[in-house]
């Protein structure tokens, strides 16, 4: 494999991963606040469809993204209302919504299957795009991809450097303690569930208006679920979630290269392979064997390694907050 081939694989990986970055970061924000929005798969499909339809009707990509974000936020509002106000099972609500929205997207999206529509225009950055390798990888994309880089950085800074970010992390960890410190846990959980949902919506539009450019039934199949896995893989940290998304992108990209060069193996194997590998990585980083291996190392080395690989879920994730 020469360098140009590698660059193509990586560039494809970044393009593949961009919708996932939006989805994984959106879900990370929601889960940090202590709410699981399990509807990712359905939300992404429904907003991909609506986003494309809206952009096509208005002949404006921005309208499409706005519509998709609103759809994502509306679905997450149902999750938030059921989980926070009605205090029902977040798993049940999310799962039902995932199925419902997916079917709804197929049903409502039928008239626009495989019709042409607007896409996000490419926007190479002058000068920077001419840097060998890096230019091709990072500076010949479109506004959406640049926005995803910005989102990663902004979310990280927000989480770990700002006061509201600290509060966000604390309401998912110990809502009672956060409440005792004078925070309105319920209002904040609503807010971050809606923001996370809007980002899931943008992830959907990123598929239909950019990465896959167009709508077909179940076009994003599986990406919503993998986004949930990436949130766990990323230890509820936006930076690591982005790494997870890009890692999955690389796997996808390699699979499609392998598919075209090894014809004897059925194509299904390659389309499934990234998902299987992703699970494998999750198992490897969380398995008991790692503890046994690390037990040979001195404590000073063991502790940072374990901390880097493993992050516990927010302690109050998925739990109802009773304010008495």
């Amino acid at each position, binding site marked *: 494999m020469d360098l140009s081939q590698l660059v193509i694989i990586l560039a494809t990986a970044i393009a593949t991963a961009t919708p996932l970055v939006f989805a994984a970061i959106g879900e990370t924000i929601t889960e940090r606040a202590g709410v699981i929005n399990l509807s990712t798969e359905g939300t992404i499909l429904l907003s991909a469809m609506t986003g494309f339809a809206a952009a096509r009707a208005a002949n404006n990509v921005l309208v499409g993204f706005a519509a998709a974000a609103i759809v994502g936020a509306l679905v997450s509002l149902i999750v938030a209302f059921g989980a926070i106000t009605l205090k029902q099972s977040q798993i049940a609500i999310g799962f039902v919504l995932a199925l419902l929205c997916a079917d709804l997207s197929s049903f409502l999206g039928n008239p626009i299957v495989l019709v042409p529509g607007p896409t996000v225009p490419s926007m190479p950055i002058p000068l920077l795009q001419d840097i060998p390798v890096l230019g091709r990888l990072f500076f010949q994309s479109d506004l959406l991809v640049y926005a995803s880089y910005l989102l990663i950085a902004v979310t990280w800074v927000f989480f770990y*450097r*700002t*006061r*509201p970010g*600290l*509060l966000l*992390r*604390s309401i998912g*960890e*110990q809502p*009672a*303690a*956060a*409440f*005792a*410190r*004078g*925070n309105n846990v319920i209002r904040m959980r609503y807010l971050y569930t809606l923001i996370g949902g809007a980002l899931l919506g943008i992830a959907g539009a990123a598929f239909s208006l950019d990465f896959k450019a167009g709508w077909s039934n179940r076009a994003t199949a599986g990406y919503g679920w993998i986004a949930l896995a990436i949130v766990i893989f990323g230890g509820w940290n936006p930076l690591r979630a982005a790494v997870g998304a890009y890692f999955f992108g690389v796997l996808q990209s390699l699979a499609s290269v392998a598919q075209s060069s090894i014809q004897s193996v059925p194509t299904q194997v390659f389309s499934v392979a990234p998902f299987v590998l992703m699970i494998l990585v999750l198992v490897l980083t969380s398995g008991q064997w790692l503890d046994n291996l*690390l*037990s040979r190392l*001195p*404590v000073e080395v*063991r*502790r940072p390694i*374990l*901390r880097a690989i493993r992050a*516990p879920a927010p*302690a109050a994730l998925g739990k109802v907050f009773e304010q*008495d």
Partner: protein
Amino acid sequence: MNIQLTHIYKRFGAVQANDDVSLDVEAGTIHGLLGENGAGKSTLVKMLSGFITRDSGEILLDGKSISVKTPADGIRSGVGMLHQDPLDFPPMSVLDNFINGRPGRLFIDRRSAVKEFKAIAEQFNFVIDTEEQVGLLTMGERQQLEIVRLLSLGVRTLILDEPTTGISASQKTALFAALKKLAKQGKSIIFVSHKLEDVEELCNNVTVMRAGKVVGSSAIPCATSKLVGMMFGRELATPVKPATSRTDTAIKIEGLTIGDDRMDVRVNDLSIKRGEVIGLAGLEGSGQRLFLLTCAGVLRPFAGKLMVNADGRLAEMTGKSYHQFQKAGVGYLPADRLREGLIWGLTIQEHVVLRTPSDGLFVNREASHSVAETAIKTFNIRGKTDTRVGQLSGGNQQRTQLALLPTPLNLVLMEHPTRGLDIESTIWVWQQLIMRCQGGTSIIFASSDLDEIVQYSDRVIVFSGGKVSEPIATAVLTASKLGEMIGGKFIGASAS
């Protein structure tokens, strides 16, 4: 700040938790609120600090009537409360915990926050690394962090709910010194406790509650018998552990190395006789829990051997599973009763079913019902067979755990066997344990209560900063020597 609570009432469902309670606390004094578990002390102070709202009654701060509906209201009027289970964020750093809830700009100014934290911490000689993760701190350090945090918010009345549970002797000394200093500065302190000796050592005044009512108050010093009389309505005696007379070995350990992601601990060769009680002393998180978990078969040691006497002979158990340890008569009672020991939503009878080995698919309801009834009777559990264990009080949960121990029982491992229990339950639990010892059961228990360790152990092992002492016979042990060893002074103390 002067505090007056007048004619406070609070009802939870069928329980009248506070029944016409009045309390006066003067500025510059430490006021003890003494009573058994369930006497209504916590309910009262939670109403003062805004964690729950009162049904009726009045709260006056410096003579002014106030309404506190949320904890934030409480802080604003100058009342801060330290909870029995610390209300903090374990995975976050000390500094993040300190900053959380403080007003300030969007971007956090960490440097000035560190400065402010240290300024207050130094006043009271609290030494806490601001970058350490709170979950890795001892209970005492978490308390200190919370005190510093509340003081930085301008609190003038500090409420502490059972603060001496789960902290070391030296931390208790530091805490008491800090509280006395705060009182001298004119702040008022409300010290909620069921421990008589703590109240007698620290407080200026005491109010005793029983069953939701105030039964009396007094200035301190005051005769202990008078306070005990008020608390229980009668006198109580603590059980005495008779010396062990057996010589056969119950458990034998050869050079164990154990560890987790924080530390490695090495335990030298050790052999424990049947009927013997071994106390594990030391600051919390010094490896006692790792040692107990290893002896229970939950953790595997990195190196070394572990042998347990089952059916009259020593069997090698290293690397065997927890269930094989259970079959060998090893029982483990964790400190976190509801999370690790019992299952919140299951009834006492269902716990009996879970414990009973069975090949069949269906549960024998009559048999398990009668076993559960017998257990409730013999262990004096205040509950019914269909009571969920989550609804039992701490003492009754511990009784249930004891009732569920496997038989025959060769070794019991316990973490804080009486933490959070009232005096009556504590006495009862140890009476049961001593009876078991006389039947040949050995006990290894960890406790932060040095009196408990000295009173009931035959030998004591001290864990300190990754080091483990040789076992020391309690007969040659003094409390001050134990305190020094917990502080890490092992030299010359290894003679057993």
